[in-house]
């Protein structure tokens, strides 16, 4: 680029340096806590750990993974994610398709759309929602975590805008060939909607994996807690609860501290997201931008 001035080149260098710094600043707290989780309790307590583990050990992870509560709530979370994501994805697609039709084809579309969008704008809040779940006898069941968040209006809007961006001729050709709406949706629309579908699956998956408050509200028994709720309940405690500890754990406890154990719990909970993120990342920017383009 011969057109670049000297001052602009200097700016570019500083700009890149600044962005590298910003990126490191984003990562550093995460790396620091990861290093703490892999350090000895003495090194962590002395504040010697920065970006690299001191006196490397995986004892904290062993300690966490041997806890029955932790593995139990991990399982609860996996079940929750699987049921929640399938339910939400099916409903999102089923609702987005009719709402993506033009008003002259489907005259009630606007009314239905407002019924859904209104739930984004106004809500009863936690108290009436809690009372409804209670009256339906859904406390302590997986349904209380899955059904109330089954309709994700934001995802519906993304999907709807994506469907609208598809060429009209596609649908006309299908209906001309005698396909029903459901067939059109399943055989033609969905296969070409993979980026958008991947985006909403990612969003719902992350939402379910991260949700902790509903678990705390609706589950009376701690063994029903999803992982995020369990973590929330232990992360703020300064000491490790000594109850229901196995002999192996009691021995391990001597070589870990509550700080290194907390750090290990944070990382085990973050791991699934770290693991799927690289695969879905290439989709969500594309899906998000395509979904938000208005036709």
């Amino acid at each position: 680029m011969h057109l670049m001035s000297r001052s602009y080149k200097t700016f570019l260098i500083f700009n890149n340096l600044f962005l590298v710094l910003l990126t490191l600043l984003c990562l550093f707290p995460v790396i620091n806590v990861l290093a703490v989780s892999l350090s000895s309790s003495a090194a962590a307590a002395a504040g010697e750990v920065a970006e690299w583990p001191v006196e490397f050990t995986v004892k904290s992870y062993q300690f966490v993974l041997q806890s029955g509560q932790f593995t139990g709530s991990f399982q609860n979370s996996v079940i929750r994610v699987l049921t929640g994501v399938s339910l939400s994805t099916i409903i999102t697609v089923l609702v987005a398709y009719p709402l993506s039709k033009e008003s002259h084809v489907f005259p009630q579309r606007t009314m239905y759309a407002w019924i859904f969008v209104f739930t984004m704008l106004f809500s009863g809040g936690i108290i009436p929602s809690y009372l409804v779940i209670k009256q339906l006898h859904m406390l302590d069941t997986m349904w209380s975590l899955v059904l109330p968040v089954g309709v994700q209006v934001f995802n519906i809007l993304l999907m709807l805008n994506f469907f609208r961006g598809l060429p009209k001729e596609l649908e006309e050709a299908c209906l001309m060939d005698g396909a029903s709406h459901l067939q059109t949706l399943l055989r033609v629309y969905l296969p070409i909607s993979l980026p958008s579908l991947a985006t909403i699956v990612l969003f719902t998956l992350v939402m379910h994996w991260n949700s902790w408050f509903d678990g705390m509200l609706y589950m009376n028994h701690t063994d029903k807690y999803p992982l995020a709720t369990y973590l929330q309940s232990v992360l703020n405690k300064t000491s490790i609860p000594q109850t229901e500890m196995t002999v192996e754990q009691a021995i391990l406890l001597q070589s870990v501290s509550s700080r290194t154990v907390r750090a290990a719990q944070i990382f085990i909970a973050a791991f699934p997201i770290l693991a799927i993120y690289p695969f879905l990342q290439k989709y969500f920017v594309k899906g998000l931008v395509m979904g938000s383009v208005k036709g």
Partner: protein
Amino acid sequence: MRAGTKRRRNNGQLHLMLVPGLILIAVFSYLPMAGLSIAFQDFNPIVGFNKLNWNGMDNFEYMWALPDFMPAVKNTVIISIMKIAAGILVPVTAALLLNEVRSVLFKRSVQTVIYMPHFFSWVILGGIVIDVLSPGEGIVNQIIQAFGGKPISFLSSNQWFRYVLVITDQWKEFGFSTIVYLAALTSIDQGLYEAAVMDGAGRWRQTWNVTLPGIRPIVVLMATLSLGNILNGGFDQVFNLYNPMVYRTGDILDTLVYRIGIVQTQYAVAAAIGLIKSVVSLALIGFGYWIAYRFAKYRIF
């Protein structure tokens, strides 16, 4: 005639597709809205909804008299306004700087890292923040001490707590918010830049006269739409970071509702606070969308 009946049959299928979604929101969104009526009742959780004891505005009067109510309103509004301001300034700056980057690989790498915290919950990020800021062993205070400073207990200091909320909120969300502005930047007509170069505009002039006016509509739109969030201070974040020592500056309406409603089981009073919050938010959102439609031709769907 034949075409008419065929269309009606097809539309029947469209109605059917909506049924599962409609049932779920009827039960889990609209029923709780009706349930807000307990804000006007002397609600007894054992008797339930069957026996209604209307008590007019008693719960609201009780709410006004609560010593924690007005401070919570004030905290919520202050925290939200700080967050909204930072939430526009930081991502716009980041998008402008990223837009100047030439190497696609470098740009992608930066984006990948800054998007990521968005996908972690406040339970995880809160755990990290608490560890990093802890006055004893936390890395931030280790650094402060290395430079000869005194350790600061950020999370139990009323002076610092709101700044911690705003900064950590940006840490989590600024990267994700830049997506919108980056998309807006790429849609600016390249011809405008060429014309500016012909007129002898340098890089700064181009930014000032082409780029900034180019993204102004989207900046105004995002600011307008965030109006509706003024009564949301961010429950997840505050709940995972606060403690009784910082109630004075950090207690927001949602955390107050939780404490009164769920912890103290005063359902009716908590529902009254929730109702006020929802109504004011709805008015603000409505106003925001109205402005967005008038000035940016924005529609929700």
